[in-house]
C-alpha cells in the first residue's frame, strides 16, 4: 500500500480526497437519494414511511395552497437578493477604495455579526419589530410620531428585513473580491477614452464584477428561499415560507413523504433558478 502511494501520484491524489469524498457520499448524496425515494412513498401513521409507491405527494404539492407558498418564497428570496445587491454593491465598492489596512478591518467588521448565533440575532429583531411591545413602535408612539403601531411584524416586510440583515455580508464578500481584483488602470483607460463616470461603471466595472455579483446572489438566494428560522420568528406564525411547511410536515404533521416531495420540488426550483441566472449573467458579462 505504501509502495503504491509512493509510486503513483494518482493514487496519492485519491488517497487525499478519499475522506471528504466518503463524507460527502454518506452524509450528502445518500440522504438526498433518501429524500427523493421517500417523496414517492406513503406516510406512516406516527411518522416514518410505508414502503408503498405513491405519486400523490407531488400532486398535492402543486395544490394552490402550497403552490402559492412556493411562489411567495421565491418572491421573498428574489426581493431579499435584490435588496442585498443594491445595498451590498456600493458597500463592497466603497471598501475597495479604502487603504489596504482599513479594508481588512472593514471586512472583519462585516463578519462580526456572524459571531453571534443566528437565532439570537433574529430574536433581537423580534424585540425591535413586535407590533405592540416592540422597541421601534413603543418609542415612536411615546414620542408622538405615530398614533397607531406600524405594521412591522408578522409580515413579508419583517421576513425580508431579517433575511437581508442575515445575508448581506455574504453578498458583499464575493463582490468585494471581484472589485478588488479589478485592475484600476482599466477605469483610467475608460476615462481616457471619453467615458463618463456612468459609462465607466456600465461598460467596465459592472461587467467585470459580474462573477462576484453572480456568486453573491447565489449565496443569498439559496439560503433565503429555504429559510425557516427567520419566517418562523419574524413571520409571527402568519407569514410562512416553504421551509416552514416542510419542517411542519416532518415535525408536526408526521407526513415524511409529503415533506420530502416539497423538499425535492424546492431543490428543483433552486436548480432551475441558478441555471437561468448563470446563463443570463454570463451572456451579459460576455463569458468572462
Amino acid at each position, binding site marked *: 500500500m505504501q509502495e503504491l502511494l509512493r509510486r503513483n501520484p494518482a493514487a496519492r491524489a485519491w488517497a487525499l480526497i478519499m475522506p471528504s469524498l466518503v463524507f460527502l457520499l454518506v452524509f450528502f448524496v445518500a440522504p438526498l437519494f433518501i429524500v427523493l425515494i421517500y417523496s414517492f412513498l406513503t406516510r406512516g401513521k406516527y411518522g416514518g414511511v410505508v414502503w408503498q409507491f405513491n405519486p400523490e405527494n407531488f400532486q398535492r404539492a402543486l395544490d394552490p395552497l402550497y403552490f402559492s407558498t412556493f411562489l411567495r418564497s421565491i418572491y421573498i428570496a428574489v426581493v431579499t437578493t435584490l435588496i442585498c445587491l443594491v445595498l451590498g454593491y456600493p458597500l463592497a465598492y466603497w471598501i475597495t477604495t479604502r487603504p489596504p489596512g482599513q479594508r481588512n478591518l472593514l471586512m472583519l467588521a462585516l463578519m462580526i455579526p456572524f459571531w453571534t448565533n443566528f437565532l439570537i440575532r433574529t430574536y433581537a429583531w423580534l424585540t425591535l419589530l413586535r407590533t405592540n411591545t416592540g422597541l421601534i413602535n413603543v418609542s415612536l408612539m411615546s414620542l408622538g410620531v405615530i398614533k397607531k403601531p406600524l405594521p412591522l411584524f408578522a409580515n413579508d416586510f419583517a421576513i425580508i428585513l431579517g433575511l437581508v440583515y442575515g445575508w448581506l455580508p455574504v453578498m458583499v464578500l464575493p463582490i468585494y473580491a471581484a472589485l478588488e481584483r479589478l485592475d484600476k*488602470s*482599466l477605469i483610467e*483607460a*475608460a476615462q*481616457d*477614452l471619453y467615458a*463618463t463616470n456612468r459609462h465607466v461603471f456600465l*461598460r467596465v466595472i459592472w461587467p467585470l464584477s459580474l462573477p462576484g455579483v453572480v456568486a453573491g446572489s447565489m449565496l443569498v438566494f439559496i439560503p433565503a428561499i429555504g429559510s425557516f428560522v427567520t419566517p418562523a420568528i419574524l413571520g409571527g406564525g402568519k407569514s410562512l415560507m416553504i421551509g416552514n411547511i416542510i419542517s411542519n410536515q416532518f415535525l408536526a404533521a408526521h407526513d415524511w413523504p409529503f415533506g420530502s416531495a416539497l423538499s425535492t420540488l424546492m431543490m428543483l426550483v433552486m436548480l432551475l433558478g441558478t441555471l437561468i441566472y448563470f446563463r443570463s449573467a454570463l451572456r451579459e458579462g460576455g463569458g468572462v
Partner: protein
Amino acid sequence: MDSTPAVELCDVVKTFGEVTAVDHVSIQIQDGEFFSLLGPSGCGKTTTLRLIAGFEMPTSGEIRIGGETQGFRPPFRRPVNTVFQQYALFPHMTVYENVAFGLQMQKIDRAEIRRRVGEALEMVHLQGMEKRRPKQLSGGQQQRVALARALVNRPKVLLLDEPLGALDLKLRKAMQLELKSLQEHVGITFIYVTHDQEEALTMSDRIAVMNEGKVLQIDAPAELYENPKHRFVADFIGETNFLPVKIVQLHPDIVVELGDGTRLPAGWAEEHLRVGQEAMLSIRPEKINLYEERELSPPNATTARVQGTVERLVYVGTDTHHTVRLRNGDTIVARLQNFYVEEEPWEVGETTYAQWDAAHARVLSKE
C-alpha cells in the same frame, strides 16, 4: 513659425502628502514632436504624464493643451489619449470592441466607427484579429491594440507610459522603430515616458531628463549626450568618466586641477561655479585616446592630457575598454574602437598618456 505649443506645463507642482512628486516643472512641447520624459523610477515622469492626461490634478501651476488651459478638466474632456504601461485592455471586450470604445463614447455613428476601427487595426497590422480577446494575443499584439485604441480617436497628443516595458528586447527594438515611423506617419504629438535612455535617444526629437521631481535638462538626443549640463544627466545618459577637480580659472578659458596638481583645460562649466570650488570633470570614454610618450605632440591649450598606467583591458567586440590608473589614484576608462584587428597596442602595466579634446570635457557641479 511661432505656433502654439501642443502641450505646455507652466511651473507645475504635484505633491502627495509630504512627497513632492513633480517639482516646479515647465515644459513646452511642439506640435508633431516626439517628446520623451526620461528618468529613473520615482523621478516624477509618470506623474507628469498623468497630470497631462488628467488622472492627477496639479497642486499648483498650469497645464495647457493646444493653448487651452486644462484646469481641473477630467480625463474624458481632454483631447489626449494614453497608452498604458500594462496596456489596460478591456479583458471582457474583443479587439474590435476595445478599439471602438473611445469612438462609441464620443457617439460617432456606426458606419464611421467601423471604417475608423478598420483603418486603425490596419495601421498596426492587426487585420483579421477583430474577434479575438486580449488574452488570446501575444504581448506585442496587445501593445498594438493599445496603440490602435488610442490613435483611432485622433487625439491632439498621444501619451505613452513605458509602452514597451513589458516586451522582450528584440521585439522592443523593432517596436521602437515602428512607433517612430508611425508617429511620423500620423503626425500626432507623442509624449513618451521611459527609464530606458537608449529607447529615448533612438526615438525622440527632444528629451526632458528628470530626477527627484525636477526637469534637469531638455534637449535633442545628441545635444543631451554631447553637452550634458548637469552631473545627473551626464551620468544617466550613456557612460562617462568623472574626475574630482578644483576650478583654477574660468575666464577666458576654463582650467581645472586634479588632486596631484595636473592642470587640464575644459570646454564648458556650469554657470554658478566659482574659481576655487571643487567640481567634477566629465569626459565620455570614447572621446579619450591613449598615446605612448614618443607619440605626444607639444602641449596646447585645447588638448587635455594625463599620465597613467594601463590597469585593465575589457574587449567588448566593437571596442576595447581601457581602464587607466592616474598618478593621483583616480581611474578613467578610454573606449578605443577595434579598428585595426591585428594591432594589440596596450598591455596591462604599461605607462600611457590619456588625451582628449578640451571641448569634450565638461565641468559639472559636485551635486
